[in-house]
């Protein structure tokens, strides 16, 4: 129980997947211009990441390991993630067409979101069991949601801010991400957790 809480804090704050590990940066900068798209991207990442981690964990433990097919894991994992995203895309197209057009290309791009594949791999590299894996995936994706919502709200306020001409648009977002990363660095050492 204690251990699960530490995994949660570590993945959520200390080793935040976007700000500390540079995973999943393209949706982070791509759809964070408005709060609404940022939030829905975060929620869809929670959905895909949790399911993908659980499914890939089972595939890895019960199919790839016994059959000695570990070298195939990249292909297998990408296939799992791609089919999950296909499912999500169909759902959005049918139920939430407005959101579907707002997310645009970034919805199918969840397929190659390195955060999701990265978490599936980290889960296996850390030898997590199923429960820790689920907690790890949920807290990582919550960390992604937190980061994307924070940067979305800051970028909305930046619309009217006086920014030097060459820094307008993407560069200022990187500066914000750097400052957020600095703020999150403050969490390292928290409860003995390190980077």
């Amino acid at each position, binding site marked *: 129980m204690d251990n699960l809480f530490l995994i949660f804090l570590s993945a959520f704050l200390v080793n935040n997947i976007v700000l500390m590990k540079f995973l999943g940066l393209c949706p982070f900068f791509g759809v964070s211009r408005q709060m609404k798209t940022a939030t829905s991207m975060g929620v869809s990442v929670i959905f895909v990441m949790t399911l993908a981690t659980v499914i890939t964990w089972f595939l890895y433990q019960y199919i790839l390991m016994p059959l000695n097919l570990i070298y195939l894991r990249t292909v297998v994992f990408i296939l799992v993630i791609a089919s999950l995203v296909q499912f999500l895309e169909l759902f959005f197209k049918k139920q939430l067409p407005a959101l579907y057009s707002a997310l645009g290309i970034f919805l199918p791009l969840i397929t190659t979101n390195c955060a999701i594949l990265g978490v599936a791999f980290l889960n296996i590299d850390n030898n997590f069991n199923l429960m820790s894996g689920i907690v790890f995936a949920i807290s990582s994706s919550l960390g992604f949601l937190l980061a994307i919502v924070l940067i979305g709200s800051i970028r909305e306020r930046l619309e009217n801010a006086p920014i030097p001409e*060459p820094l307008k648009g993407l560069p200022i977002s990187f*500066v914000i991400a750097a400052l957020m990363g600095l703020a999150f660095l403050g969490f390292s050492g928290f409860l003995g957790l390190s980077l």
Partner: protein
Amino acid sequence: MDGLGAGIGFTLVLFIMGTIREILGQGIWMSIPGVFDGFKIFGTSFTESSAILLILPPGGFLTIALLMGLFNYWRKK
């Protein structure tokens, strides 16, 4: 050909970023851990109080932000 160009551009940007972060952050250049210690660019007085920020993750964001700003500035000029 387009892919080749993008790849070379990516390599260049990575090279520039790595150079900036390594020289300012550690005072050495082109070091490979365990293989080669790297060229000493600055003396020990610098390496003892170097900009650790640039080695840490936020430094990467900051470096690329400033690089992009610089390129935008040159393009407009």
